[in-house]
Every structure is written in C-alpha cells, then in structure tokens.
C-alpha cells in the first residue's frame, strides 16, 4: 500500500514527461528509490505516522510540476518530438484501469480495418490488371488468402499480448525455490512461452504460405518457410520478454490513476 502511494507520487512527476519509455522507466526507478528512502527517514522522525511521513517526504522531494519541468529539460529535443502524442490521433497505449482484453478489443478494430484496406487494394489491383487469356490470379484463392491472412494477423498480433499477460501472471505468482508447486508452475510458464514464441514465429511464414496460395503455385519453398520460422522464433523470444516486461511496467506504474485523485 505504501509502495503504491510512493509510486503514485513519482508517476505524477514522470508520466506527463515527453520522453522514451526507457528513459521514463529509469526516472521512475531512481526517483522511487530516493523517495522511498526519504519516506523511511521521515517515518522514523514521525514515530511511524504514515500520513505525516508521506507528506514530509513529498515536501522534501519537491513539487511534481517543478520536477516535471526540470526532468523535461533533460530530454533531448529529438526524443521529445518523437514521443509527443500526435494531435487528433487516438491514444494507442493502455489506459489506467483498462484490462488487456479491453486494449486488444480496441486494437482489433485497427487490425481489421488495416487488413480490410490491404486486401481490398490487392483485389482492386488484380481486377484492374486481369486479362482474358492471360495468367490470372484466382479470385477464390485471393479470398481464401484474405480471410486466412486476417485471421493469422489477429491471432499473432492480438493473441501474443494475451499469452504474454499469462506469462507475466505466472512469473509473478511463481512459488519460491523448494516449494512443491514450483515445478508445475515452471512447466506452465514454459508452455506459455512456447505458445507466445510460436504465435510470433508463425506469422511471417504464414503470410508467405498465403502468397503461395494466391499465386496458385509455390513461390516460397517449404525449406524456406521452415528456415524463416526458426529465424523468427529466435527473434520472438527476446521480443516476448520485452512485451512481458512492458506488461509488468504497466502493472507497476501505468495502472495508477493520477489525475485529480485523492491519495488513499
């Protein structure tokens, strides 16, 4: 509970800063370490009165608005511009209080819209350049590819974060060494990781296989598709780790409500 109060104070300072997530997470961690120490020191002085200690620690630490300006001044201009939200565009990042499924439901609309635009464009091109008597791309094959491609994209792009969330929860709840349930928990963790890696690793080869379907003959050989799967699997493991870490960062920081809210 105290940790959450301290994090909320830090988040008031750091969240509005326009900077890369990496820089902001570093600020959060360092500032939290200092504020925690301040709180402990003030706790000793205030004979354990939590509210007084927190107020005293925050007073010593500084006004959020002032600190925020000072921190913003340390961010290079190019980084500030790169991470500034685009006006008129909806915020894509997860909002405080939003579940992972809520975020994915928002994302699904964009994925479907993008997929529909892409495949419609392909259809139009095929129809425009289809010549009687020449080699044509089967519209049936194209339709199958469009549906299968959209399904694959949804499974990969949206399914992966869901599995990463499962990995995060398993990791957080992992029993201590020596616990009888640890082995089962590790097996579950490994299974989730394999599923996550497979989802990402299968995306590119799946699309290439669909191109084979559309073309009506194997442009990309089976050996190439397998090779790509293995290569993508190698990349998707660290990417999965990054996504899991990002989800945990949200649990630690991003889920905190900071606007106009009483600290409780």
């Amino acid at each position, binding site marked *: 509970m105290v940790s959450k109060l301290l994090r909320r104070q830090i988040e008031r*300072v750091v969240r509005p800063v326009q900077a890369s997530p990496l820089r902001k997470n*570093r*600020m959060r*961690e*360092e*500032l*939290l*370490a*200092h*504020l*925690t*120490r*301040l709180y402990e020191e003030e706790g000793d002085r205030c004979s354990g009165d939590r509210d007084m200690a927190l107020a005293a620690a925050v007073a*010593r*630490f*500084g*006004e959020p608005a*002032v*600190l925020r300006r*000072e*921190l913003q*001044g*340390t961010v*290079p201009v190019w980084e500030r511009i790169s991470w500034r939200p685009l006006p008129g565009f909806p915020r894509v990042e997860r909002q405080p209080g939003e579940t992972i499924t809520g975020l994915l439901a928002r994302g699904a609309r964009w994925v479907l819209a993008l997929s529909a635009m892409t495949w419609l464009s392909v259809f139009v091109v095929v129809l425009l350049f289809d010549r009687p008597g020449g080699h044509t791309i089967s519209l049936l094959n194209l339709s199958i590819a469009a549906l299968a491609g959209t399904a694959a994209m949804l499974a990969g792009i949206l399914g992966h974060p869901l599995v990463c969330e499962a990995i995060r929860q398993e990791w957080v709840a992992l029993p201590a060494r020596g616990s009888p349930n640890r082995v089962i928990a590790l097996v579950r963790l490994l299974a989730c990781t394999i599923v996550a890696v497979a989802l990402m690793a299968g995306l590119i080869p799946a699309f290439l296989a669909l191109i084979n379907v559309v073309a009506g003959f194997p442009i990309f050989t089976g050996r190439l598709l397998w090779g790509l799967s293995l290569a993508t699997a190698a990349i998707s493991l660290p990417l999965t780790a990054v996504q899991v870490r990002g989800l945990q960062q949200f649990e630690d920081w991003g889920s905190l409500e900071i606007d106009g809210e009483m600290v409780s």
Partner: protein
Amino acid sequence: MRAIEGDRLRGHLEGLILAALEGGAGHGWEIWSRLEESAAGLLRLKEGSLYPALYRLERERLIVGRWESDASGRRGPRRRVYRLTPKGRRQLVAARGEWRQFVNVIGGLLGAT
C-alpha cells in the same frame, strides 16, 4: 548563518555534484547526504532536483552511471551509481578556478575579501 535557498543554489548544483563525486562513486541518496554533510544542513533545495542535474551531467559525459548490482542484497527499487569521468574531473578543476575568480572579484567589490 542563513540557509542557501533553491534559486541561488540551482546554478551551482552541477559543480557541487561533481565535487561530491570526487571522493568516490555514489547513488543519488549518497550524493545528497555528502552535500548536506559538507554544507552543515544549510542547503535548501528540493531533493528531487538532484536527478535532473545528474541527468544533465551524464548527457555531457561529465559523470557516468550504472545500475547497482543485485548482489548487494538490498530490497526495493534499484539505485543508479554515478562516478566522475576524466572529463568530469577536468570540469571540476575548471569550475573551482572559475569560482575562486568569482569570489575574488565579487568579494573585492563587496569588500568581503
């Protein structure tokens, strides 16, 4: 003796941090403690302002920071330990020279030297 308040102090904070690190590497809390001890409690600056100064110094490569290793056995958020770079040491020497000149000139005008 009157305490030295935020605005008068802020322009010199980076030099003070370099001086605090001259004795050895330290994280933010340690740096602040060294400053407080040296100033006998007469510094009145919000402690959070230390970190923007540290980031500016790191950007200018006058100090370099790395995360404390987990082997320290401490619980809680990680701390970043900073140390002076050779460029930082040269800057500290230059800053001392400038300060002595400042004190001599202004002190002479005020009749305080």
